[in-house]
């Protein structure tokens, strides 16, 4: 955690002098990261809902992927000046940069929930739903404060 915070601080320090930069690559990268999360959540969620058949190996792979994504420090993808107020094509609210500590904590909470899901993903369909809940809560807790509501 300390290392994550230090890395975040470093990234912010490096990113601060950037003025009116082109952030297209950063925005693509972070939206891609969230897309990777959604696709893997979808694999597990569809099984939990009963829309697709449960496959232990597939569920495990998807959960492993979520844990892998949670190991990324997301602040690297959020350089200062890339909020929805500054640039087009993003719903990232300026509040992110006022609360990077809280953003980091919420990302860490996602990591914990993903690890808990990883631990049970191979145990059968019934195990998925209860473990999926906290992952969704982690997503929402961040979206609640740091993402613009809708297009």
């Amino acid at each position, binding site marked *: 955690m300390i290392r994550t915070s230090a890395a975040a601080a470093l990234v912010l320090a490096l990113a601060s002098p950037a003025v009116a930069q082109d952030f297209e690559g950063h925005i693509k990268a972070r939206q891609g990261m969230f897309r990777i*999360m*959604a*696709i893997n959540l979808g694999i597990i*969620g569809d099984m939990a809902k009963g829309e697709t058949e449960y496959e232990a190996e597939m569920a495990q792979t998807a959960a492993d992927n979520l844990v892998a994504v949670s190991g990324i420090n997301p602040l690297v993808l959020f350089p200062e000046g890339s909020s929805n107020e500054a640039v087009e094509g993003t719903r990232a609210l300026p509040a992110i940069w006022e609360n990077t500590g809280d953003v980091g904590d919420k990302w860490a909470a996602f990591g914990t929930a993903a690890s808990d899901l990883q631990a049970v993903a191979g145990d059968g369909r019934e195990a998925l739903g209860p473990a999926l809940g906290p992952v*969704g809560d982690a997503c929402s807790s961040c979206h609640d404060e740091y993402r613009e*509501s*809708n297009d």
Partner: protein
Amino acid sequence: MRRTVGAALAALLLAGGVGLWLTRATPADAALYEDLDGDAEAGEQVFVAAGCASCHHAPDAEGEAKRVLSGGQRFASDFGTFVAPNVSPHPEAGIGDWSLAEFASAVTRGVSPGGAHYYPAFPYTAYVRLEPATVADLWAFWQTLPQDATPSETHEVGFPYNIRRGVGLWKTLYLSEDWIRPADTPELERGRQLVEALAHCGECHTPRGALGALDTDRWLAGAENPSGDGRIPSLRPADLDWSKSDIAYYLESGFTPDYDTAGGHMVAVVENFAQLPAADREAVAAYLEALPE
């Protein structure tokens, strides 16, 4: 001359009288609540479905602390910023010394025990459709909530909206207990009770006119977000192409069909719906599917 002055005075008095009449505060009919003895357990479901805590818990409350209704959350609008008051059962700081009829007047008519109008940021325009027995259940549950002594803050509302009597005129025009949509099955009826009354979905998902009244012709057709944060989506079938189970699952888990999650105030709404029986979430889905295109 004297006659003209007299006529003018009479006209003025009449206009004033009409004005006072149009802006008067009409509480709920106390007789309807006289013999009611609410069921606290049923009231808890009402409390959750109505989302009382979502607006009245302290700004940073998490978990169980969300049942401490100390107020303090701020709600921006075109008319000013409203600050949710303390409605915990504390006898001085909250509403602990109210009677059931006074509580019903506040919740279903927007009228305080002292006869003042509440601003319609408090969604009594939706709660007006609740049965007295439902309100009595809610009040019974209210008695089990923790007390909190935090004083309520004043709303930040400028002229002319700071004249609360104006709210009376607004109510004369827009406060109606009529249902918006027909419901001819028990499931649709429950869905309607949840959507139109308890969960007050229309408050955010229906666009408003110049005076802040809901445009019921465009019921649940999407609206500007009063906080300025994005747009609140339409729930009409033509715009929301989710299946019934997609809608029910979203209300349970917060996941959209493509596994994005809820944001903004909808996070609190999902948190509430997740605590209700599955049949309630399905009833909401049935109601939404039956909306006009």
